[in-house]
């Protein structure tokens, strides 16, 4: 029983990481039908931008700020203008393929211009463990979980309480109608890309001390976040959070009670079952729009 609790806590800690990456995924899908296969790499890159800035002599706090700004520029604005915009109206697939190519390109660039080695990354959350109900949990994991929750609350507030949020929701639900009633659809879509870029930069900052800065670290993250997003509900922010936490826990329980060799299979089977019997995901709403 105590073992089970340990696993749950550890699973939630990892799940929070997946959740954080998955949120951006769902945002991009909602407003622009972009399936971003490079989402994992999007989380990998900001840490390297910050490391590069620190190598250039910038102090940590400045590197963080500049790193986030660069992420907004490259992963938000640049990604949207250069890759998404020209391809969006040609359907989901070519763009999905292009993001796969982007993922390869980003990995290779980091490897070539930085290093194939894993580098340690300073943590903004103090390293160390804390005891909760007798379970030892690392402060870093708690930091990730706290941020994930803050992101959901923040985003939900933004979407439901502010007029920009309402406009974004209108854009997501039906861009044609939104345009007719005067929503600046283009600007709203751009905004989601910027929010995604900001989120991945934050995620990078929190996750990299745990995962280490490595060119390939996005592969595992991207796929886990992908599964989390679908399981939770591809079109709901809180769905992504729930999916992330669930996948983290299920993964740990599977490793402990099913088989370590097949631990990766359990979330996938869950994914298949959910798609077949509840395709909108656990917390998602049925899609009204066909793509």
């Amino acid at each position, binding site marked *: 029983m105590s073992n089970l609790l340990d696993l749950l806590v550890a699973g939630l800690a990892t799940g929070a990481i997946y959740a954080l990456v998955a949120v951006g995924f769902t945002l991009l899908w909602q407003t622009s039908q972009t399936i971003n296969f490079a989402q994992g790499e999007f989380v990998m890159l900001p840490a390297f931008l910050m490391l590069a800035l620190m190598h250039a002599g910038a102090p940590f706090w400045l590197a963080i700020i500049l790193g986030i700004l660069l992420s907004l520029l490259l992963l938000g604005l640049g990604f949207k203008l250069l890759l998404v915009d020209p391809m969006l109206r040609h359907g989901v697939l*070519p763009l999905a393929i292009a993001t796969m190519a982007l993922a*390869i*390109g980003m990995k290779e660039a980091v490897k070539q211009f930085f290093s194939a080695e894993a580098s340690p990354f300073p943590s903004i959350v103090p390293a160390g463990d804390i005891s909760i109900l007798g379970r030892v949990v690392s402060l870093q994991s708690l930091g990730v979980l706290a941020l994930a929750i803050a992101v959901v609350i923040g985003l939900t507030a933004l979407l439901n309480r502010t007029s920009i949020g309402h406009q974004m929701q209108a854009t997501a639900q039906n861009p044609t109608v939104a345009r007719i009633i005067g929503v600046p659809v283009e600007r709203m879509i751009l905004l989601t890309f910027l929010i995604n870029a900001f989120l991945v930069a934050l995620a990078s900052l929190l996750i990299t001390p745990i995962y280490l800065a490595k060119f390939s670290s996005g592969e595992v993250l991207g796929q886990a976040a992908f599964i989390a997003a679908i399981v939770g509900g591809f079109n709901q922010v809180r769905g992504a959070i729930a999916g992330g936490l669930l996948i983290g826990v299920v993964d740990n329980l599977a490793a402990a009670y099913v088989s370590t060799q097949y631990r990766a299979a359990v979330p996938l089977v869950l*994914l298949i079952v959910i798609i077949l019997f509840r395709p909108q995901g656990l917390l998602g709403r049925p899609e009204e729009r066909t793509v």
Partner: protein
Amino acid sequence: MTVKGKYLRIALGIVVIGALIIVPMNFNRYGLYILSQWAVMTIAAMGLNLTLGYAGQVSLAQGAFVGIGAYAAAIMTTQGMPLIAALSVAVVLCFAIGWILGYPALRVQHHYLAFVTLAFSTLAFLVFRNEDWLTKGIYGISNIPRPNVMGFATNRPLPFYYFCLGSLGIVSLAMWWLIRSPWGRAFIALRENPVRALSLGIDTRRYTLMAFAIGSALGGVAGTLYAPLTQYIDPVPFNLSLSLDLLMMVIVGGSGFFFGPFLGAMIAVLLPEWLRFTQGYYLMLYAVAVMLLLIYSPTGILGILDRYLAARRTKAASALRAVTKSKLETAS
């Protein structure tokens, strides 16, 4: 014009086929290996092109079927059975599994279908890796023999290349037949407008499952060639990235065009090789090239050609109209 176009196309076809047979004769072993790889990947991509390009069903599991075929070939031929037996097993097995994998397509479409097949692809990889008793797990299976085809040994690179090319030829002919047959028309109807297809008596369920099953079986065919090509297989090449690569080949070549997979496989197999002179930058450049191509033409290489031909046709048509009009004007 169409008659002239037809002769032109036949002539071009003969030149290309002739070149594929004659030019590699003085290639070194590496060149032949790469070309053989191209032929094998083209077959797998053709299967996916049927499922995705013609019938419109997204599949991210084609790499898993190549794996199933490769393992069937590796396991059986290292036990002394002939490759043709392995081929039959692979085709039947992939057809059956593809058929089953098609069932989700009856419930969900588009990206959801992509996710289900993606999950299947990773599950297949785990089975290849973990079931040591069958697949020898991560150690892989080595010393896979190359077959004797009608009494000819294909151990040397050139005969084996011809074996791959010949297989590609047979598959292409079969595919051409299939696409032209009422089945091919039904697949296209399924992709373009399933509701209308249904109202015309087309059993969309059966055709959907068939598209999956046949496409997957072709993946199996490619796999049975892949195993004797590399003569060693382990689970790693058959992970999700192969499925994604094959998808990339289909989209980049031109999804739903007969020759799309040929060109797509060429880009995916040969372009990185051509770029290797840039050393550490070659995969980066490859990625950039793919992105630029897709930005320029999201419908792939043949999409460019298609647009060009369509533009010319419109121009010709408007020219014709202009001529008719001026004639009318002179007449009046």
